[in-house]
């Protein structure tokens, strides 16, 4: 069973959002997503300072199997990126909610209002996908 920490928010595209202080959101892909992708071997992150809109493809994760876009779950400016993933992309497999974080975004006014799922709702979605 996938690990779905209760304190995070989720999207139906299998990203997670952690609300940090000062209107900043941390973003990554879920345990379910990393498991489905298999061993991750390459990660491409957006440049610092780039403005992303919720739903926009903003990063790429390539696994042994395939390349997948990662969609911004919120709107705002990219103020942090996990450059350690460049040499250790497997951190996403090993610790998707910790060392495998991908971006930090300073939310635009209203930028965090995008429709996200609670942990319970995301678990529900996973249950439906596996049916």
């Amino acid at each position, binding site marked *: 069973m996938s690990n779905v920490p209760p304190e995070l928010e989720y999207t139906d595209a299998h990203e997670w959002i952690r609300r940090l202080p000062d209107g900043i959101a941390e973003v990554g892909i879920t345990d379910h997503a990393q498991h489905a992708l*298999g*061993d991750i*071997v*390459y990660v491409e992150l957006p440049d610092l300072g780039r403005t992303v809109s919720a739903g926009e493809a903003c990063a790429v994760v*390539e696994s*042994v*199997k*395939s390349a997948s876009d990662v969609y911004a779950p919120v709107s705002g400016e990219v103020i942090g990126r996990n450059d350690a993933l460049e040499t250790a992309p497997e951190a996403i497999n090993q610790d998707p909610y910790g060392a495998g974080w991908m971006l930090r975004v300073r939310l635009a006014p209203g930028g965090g209002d995008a429709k996200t799922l609670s942990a319970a709702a995301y678990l529900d979605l996973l249950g439906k996908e596996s049916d």
Partner: protein
Amino acid sequence: MGRRTVLFDLHRTLGARMVDFGGWDMPLHYGSQVAEHNAVRRAAGVFDVSHMGVVDVDGAGSRELLERLLANDVAKLTAPGRALYGCMLNEAGGIIDDLLVYRLEASAFRIVVNAGRRDVDLAWIRRHAAGFGVTIAERDDLAMLAVQGPEARALAAKLLAPAQAQAALALAPFHARTVGEWYVSRTGYTGEDGFEVMLPAAGAADLFEALRAAGAAPCGLGARDTLRLEAGLNLYGNDMDEQTDPFESALGWTVAMQPVTRRFLGRDALEAIERRGSARKLVGLLLLDRGGVLRRHQTVIAPGVGEGEITSGGFSPTLERSIAFARVPAATGTEVEVGVRGRALRARVVKPPFVRHGQPLVS
């Protein structure tokens, strides 16, 4: 639902992620494809390869039939217990399948063919067998395991009685023999030393579990694919098919054009291709730029020469870089560009294998 090997339930029990391969439900990996790959390069891994087709060709005319059917020459199998890799061609020189042929006895051979080509191959063989006085038997009663890696042979030998172990360990590369219930060969598809073991299907799960208990990591098709790619070994359906010939598939070395008196199927077409020269060749690529992973069907641009296409690509765990095979114009030089997600990335043209016996051969 696809066809299942006798080990299907065991794979599920071991947590395998299953995938369709040539109409068969097979394990892709049991957790981490990269860890399985590394286990084979550094120690040992065990693969279920029972989806492959085993066909016995028996009878007075079996050698003559195979001399007609195969582009490599079974006359090279001068004694029972020898094995040979080669292609079976159509009249146009296109590759129907690539296979291993073992000489079991003076007039008995065993062929191991690709899972997805079993039915096509059998129909082709039967069609051409009339008049040769042979029986052709698909050995669905057998399962096949591959145990591969620097420690694989020693680990497998531990499961045998001392005299049998000694006999198995004495096998030279591309040699095989019967050892108890096993037909064991020193062959494989990984670029590492190891055995392939054919045995009665009923004993396959016990052998798989015994090899696991002895230290072999269970490995799926994902690792099998990256291992064979690093080892420079073609995959049927990716790197060659009925529309491509051995010369443009880096398999010219498996075609025995001598003696000229051996008129094997496809020979006339290959002679014509030899005279005019191949327009394309299959090469290895090593990605130089960062920016993604080389994958099948990506476009390859040879500056000033033309375009080609990647036939197999992926991430090499041993080299920690992306590698590929590509079919490109014959005049392609030493560097190309590959279209990866809208960008042109530089790749160096190399001659496979990329890795052999755990050691990188390119840098």
